[in-house]
């Protein structure tokens, strides 16, 4: 006996739903999950000694906000079972900048005693699209440097890159990725603490009222990624 129209369409819907569910289950099974063996720890290692300032100010990092738009910021690589970070990229960057500022005694013990407050916006942390033959590590952030007394602020951009060899073995690949991101982080922090942009911002903000009002963005302005 032939099936009636409504029954046939219901069967079709159930079939499609079933196939979709199976496909979703398969996709979920392929999605890499963080495990101790595929998790890497990114550390700055040797802190970067900052440049010398005429009147050394005290900095305080108020916040590091992740603006990368990455839904899985801790997953640096999806292929081959995935590679994950053990900490949020924002926390790694904050730790790195603090370590470097502390070396030159430029880090304030608390927000109240700081001359300049830093708000960091992280645009990229991890691997970027490379040639496929190697790993291209990139760390990019922008910082709003704000004078705690006058409220004036300036934007300082920083970026770090690194190229590391590709690898066949998973263990070697994980090691190369770790070294590559660490080098990019080191490079970005060096670009920030030794950059002429920070020097100019510190000089302008320490003058206070001498800053050209039009040139200084307000603290509420959100910095945009570096446009090359």
């Amino acid at each position, binding site marked *: 006996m032939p099936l009636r129209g409504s029954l046939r369409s219901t069967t079709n819907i159930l079939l499609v739903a079933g196939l979709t569910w199976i496909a979703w289950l398969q996709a979920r099974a392929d999605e890499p999950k963080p495990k101790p063996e595929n998790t890497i720890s990114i550390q700055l290692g040797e802190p970067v000694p900052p*440049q010398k300032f005429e009147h050394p100010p005290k900095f305080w990092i108020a916040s590091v906000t992740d603006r990368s738009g990455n839904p899985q910021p801790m997953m640096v690589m999806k292929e081959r079972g995935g590679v994950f970070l053990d900490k949020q990229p924002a926390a790694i960057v904050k730790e790195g900048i603090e370590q470097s500022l502390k070396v030159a005694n430029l880090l304030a013990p608390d927000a109240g005693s700081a001359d300049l407050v830093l708000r960091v916006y992280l645009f990229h942390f991890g691997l*970027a*699209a*490379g*040639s*496929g*033959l190697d790993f*291209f590590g*990139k760390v990019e952030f922008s910082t709003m440097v704000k004078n705690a007394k006058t409220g004036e602020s300036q934007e300082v951009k920083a*970026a*770090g*890159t*690194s*190229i590391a060899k590709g690898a066949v073995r998973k263990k070697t690949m994980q090691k190369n990725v770790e070294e590559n991101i660490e080098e990019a982080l080191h*490079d970005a922090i*060096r*670009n920030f603490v*030794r*950059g*002429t*942009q920070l*020097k100019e911002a510190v000089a302008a903000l320490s003058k206070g009222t001498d800053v050209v009002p039009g040139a200084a963005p307000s603290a509420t302005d959100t910095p945009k990624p570096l*446009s*090359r």
Partner: protein
Amino acid sequence: MRVLMVALVAGFFAMGAVAKPKDETPQYKTAEAKHFTTAEGVELTPAFVDYFYAELRSELTKAKLVNEVVGEGEAVDDADAPKSLVISGTITEYKKGNVVKSALIGFGAGMRSLKMDADVVRRSDKQNLCVLHVHVKIDPRWNEKIMAKGAAHQMVKEMKKALAETSKPS
């Protein structure tokens, strides 16, 4: 015969000792590579320029042309400025290539090509030390980032040669 062999081996060792040491100290202290700009009509993504910048820095480090490769916009000690380089440039032409032409005709037809010009200046007085023109061609099926890799390698090779010629006493 044995004596001759011993003399030959000793000769090789002597030549090795006289030869120029491999790890000689670089002539320049720092080099700052800037992001290259693209000329009008060049259809390349900012990601390509970013990748080329990273490759150029990586090649400069590998070539041991300088003691330290600094990032874009980093401050350099005034004392080091006369021995520091700044590299900037423009991507003047990019041709995507044609897979069909490349497969059917061959002999370089339909290749993906990239032309770029670079200036190497001394940081202290902005004196131009050399001008480089690089032209790379690759198979159109290959990733354009491979082209960036090749271009960076060729640029540093030419830079090394040009700077060596500049520093030669005339």
